[in-house]
């Protein structure tokens, strides 16, 4: 887009927004609680997703603190090992399916229509459904805590035969997975249909904002793998209650088959959590570097290749199950290949910063921390892809450190970055920059105190998922627990910043960030945007 057309656009949009209000006043939000129950508005649904995700983030975080409290020193202090296992299992399930995924769906709902010039999502009623399934699913999952024998305790991977030893919770946990899967698939279909059919005229695929691209690819991953996961857990259900032996060797089945099915879902799943983060970061860095994104098309191709490769590397989670040598080697080579497109992304981000005119508001700080710390997780990932070395790393705290580096200062920091970036647009108020920076610095320092020592623990021989440990691991565990509590409490600042911005504060301009309107259609809309936007499609040059 050229500068001139931009000015025109802004005026044009203003006009649309106002005109719209006069004509369709009855199309504003309904009053009270029912607004949220029956809403089909992409912005309301986005808000619902984001609020749910934030609540689940705090719940999952509280569970993590139970884990880190028990691990603060050697010896069993607070919880029974069985409850400890329930905490690790629920913590992971809640963070993955309750916090990170819904938060990105919230971003998608809010931003995709605004970014592509569409009035709403293509399937608004289904959109309402796909959100409202979630609270019920999580209440069901949480209720297992109060059942005989407690919540699932076999790890979020739910490996048989261990998971089949579980008591009353098993069918509830499995139905939770089914519900979450339905919700994700509906959300994914909605996104694909919206992007393919509702782009403003002139918004060709190769003009799509990168956030939209990453979400389209994520949506295809979701549609492909969620049914596999649903199928695998259904097989667990029939093994437990209907006498089948899919995973029982004594009946002719194979416990490792479950692992293949799980990781065929599970590996793409980790990319489901990180690809939209790539999109957010690729959106934020150019704005604050005041420079176009470097290598737009290679970013698109890299995202697509990561999506493709994610389907053919699953067994790198199973190097120790006794695969044939050829299998080990194949999965080693295929996994190593992921480093290439991932590297391209990192290089492109650095090249975008290069010779820009950077400023360091909170979203940019989180984006930079993302690039640095996600890359750390990429390095350990590359190390683990080497199967002989992974014979040591597998199932140790080294793995715990790896995936937390890609998920916390990776996906979660991208969520923070995106929230600070778009919050003024959503609420119409600037957030408190001082508190935002405080949140950033506390989080960034503590997340490293929390997770960096875990590399050492893993290499020194500490297995993961244990409630107590030998005394030579004491120092780094203590350090990690201190980091965890600081990190946990620092998030209260984030909650406060968000609430504060919703309630009021300095009025945000439409553009919010200097020059942002060159980086996306959403910045040409008023802050906050009217309830319905782009009822007339914008012209894209």
């Amino acid at each position, binding site marked *: 887009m050229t500068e001139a057309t931009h000015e025109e656009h802004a005026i044009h949009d203003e006009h649309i927004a106002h005109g719209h209000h006069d004509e369709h006043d009855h199309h504003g939000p309904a009053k009270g609680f029912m607004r949220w129950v029956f809403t089909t508005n992409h912005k309301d649904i986005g808000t619902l997703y984001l609020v749910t995700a934030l609540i689940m983030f705090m719940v999952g975080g509280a569970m993590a603190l139970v884990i880190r409290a028990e691990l603060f020193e050697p010896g069993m202090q607070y919880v029974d090992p069985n409850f400890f296992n329930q905490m690790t299992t629920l913590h992971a399930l809640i963070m993955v399916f309750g916090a990170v995924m819904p938060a990105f769906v919230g971003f998608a709902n809010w931003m995709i229509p605004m970014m592509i010039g569409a009035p709403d999502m293509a399937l608004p009623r289904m959109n309402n459904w796909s959100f409202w399934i979630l609270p019920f699913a999580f209440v069901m999952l949480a209720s297992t805590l109060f059942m005989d024998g407690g919540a699932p305790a076999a790890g979020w991977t739910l490996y048989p035969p261990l998971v089949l030893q579980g008591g009353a919770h098993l069918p509830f946990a499995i139905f939770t997975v089914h519900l979450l899967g339905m919700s994700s698939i509906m959300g994914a279909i909605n996104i694909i249909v919206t992007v393919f059919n509702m782009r403003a005229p002139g918004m060709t695929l190769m003009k799509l904002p990168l956030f939209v691209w990453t979400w389209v690819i994520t949506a295809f991953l979701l549609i492909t793998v969620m049914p596999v996961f649903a199928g695998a857990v259904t097989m667990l259900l029939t093994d437990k209650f209907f006498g089948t032996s899919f995973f029982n060797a004594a009946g002719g089945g194979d416990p490792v088959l479950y692992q293949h099915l799980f990781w065929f879902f599970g590996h793409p799943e980790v990319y489901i959590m990180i690809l939209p983060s790539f999109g957010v970061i690729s959106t934020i860095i150019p704005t604050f570097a005041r420079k176009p994104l470097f290598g*737009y098309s290679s970013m698109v191709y890299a995202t697509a290749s990561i999506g493709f490769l994610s389907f053919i590397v699953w067994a790198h989670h199973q190097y120790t199950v006794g695969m044939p040598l050829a299998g080990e080697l194949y999965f080693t080579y295929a996994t190593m290949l992921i480093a290439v497109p991932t590297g391209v992304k990192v290089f492109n981000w650095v090249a975008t910063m290069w010779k820009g005119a950077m400023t360091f508001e909170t979203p940019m700080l989180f984006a930079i921390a993302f690039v640095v710390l996600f890359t750390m997780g990429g390095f350990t990932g590359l190390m683990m892809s080497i199967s002989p070395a992974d014979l*040591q790393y597998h199932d140790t705290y080294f793995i715990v450190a790896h995936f937390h580096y890609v998920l916390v200062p990776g996906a979660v920091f991208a969520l923070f970055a995106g929230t600070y970036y778009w919050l003024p647009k959503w609420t119409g108020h600037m957030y408190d920059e001082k508190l935002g920076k405080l949140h950033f610095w506390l989080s960034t320092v503590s997340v490293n105190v929390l997770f960096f020592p875990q590399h050492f623990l893993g290499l020194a021989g500490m297995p993961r998922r244990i409630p107590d440990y030998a005394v030579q691991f004491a120092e780094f565990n203590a350090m990690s627990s201190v980091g965890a509590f600081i990190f946990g409490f620092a998030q209260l600042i984030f909650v406060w910043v968000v609430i504060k911005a919703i309630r009021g504060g300095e009025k945000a301009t439409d553009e919010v960030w200097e020059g942002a309107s060159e980086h996306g259609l959403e910045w040409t809309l008023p802050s906050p945007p009217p309830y319905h936007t782009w009822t007339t499609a914008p012209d894209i040059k």
Partner: protein
Amino acid sequence: MKKLKLLITGLGIATFGEANADYALNLSPGVTQLSRDIYDLHMYILWICVAIGVGVYGMMVYSIMHHRKSKGVVPAHFHENTKLEVIWTIIPFVILLAMAIPATKVMIEAYDTSASDMTVKVTGYQWKWRYTYLDNGIDFFSTLDAKSNEARQLGVRSNPEAVPNYLLEVDKPLVIPAGKKVRFLFTAADVIHSWWVPKFGWKKDAIPGYVTDAWTKVEQPGIYRGQCAELCGRDHGFMPIVVDVKSEADYNKWVEAQKAQAQKAVTDAAKTYSMAELMAKGEEVYNASCAGCHMANGEGMQGMFPAIKGSAVATGDLNTHLDVVVKGKGQMMPAFGDSLSPVEIAAVVTYQRNGFGNNKGDLVQPSDVSARN
């Protein structure tokens, strides 16, 4: 590079003091050729990552320092450079190739279980290991030792520092000879476990119904420790592995002693025991094998593990009680028929029926147990 490593190690020491000298930051090179090869591979890829990191982070830091708006920089407008993009796609490929070749070599080595001198079958149980020597029939279980077990109970408020090798000690270690290629076969009786001794360089899953294999050849006698690495239920954190590697002569002596002991067990099982003998032995067995769930005071855990104290089984029909112990019950109660000897089962059942205020007065002899098998 050396300096960086020193710096990192130095920082570690500065923060943690010398109080605990055996904490480690890195993999151990281990005690076998294979473990050293894996260690070298690990260091090789680590340094490659460090080198790439220095480049990427260096560029970022430079850019953040100099390309700031506050320095009055006017932003450039470039957003593409095909040559550059092709280069930074190709170079990683070459680096990966340089990593894949040594990785392949080491993996082939790790998989070569041929020409072994002896074979030990390792079976994972919740939560102990069973070692069966296929060449000479020696067969025993290895569980967390009593001191660690006592200290790790919730609410004991123990001082783990005072327990030698807390959580890394067993009642009976695996014994193998130095300088011999030992092949291991892994399987499991209940759920998946994973056998890991870091100094040997690898871990391998033990999967019910399947047999996986691996090998080691330890050069020097010594004691090497490890743990179960695959989540296997409540006491996953409490099933350590200890390998006592002996010189060949000592190993042979040990084998002879084991055979003599096995002989003695057969004669022991035919004897009759007094109440005092059974109760003393029974308490020992109870604390090692039962207290993990039913608790040392016999009160069990509400909703999860039934109490022994006043329980219908422990105060009811003797044969039912024996069957539960020998054959197991439900998903959680293991069958002890394999892992405990008739003498041990007789003792522990006697202990359960007379301890905890149950006072049944029953005396169970090994022959009663053998009759139920």
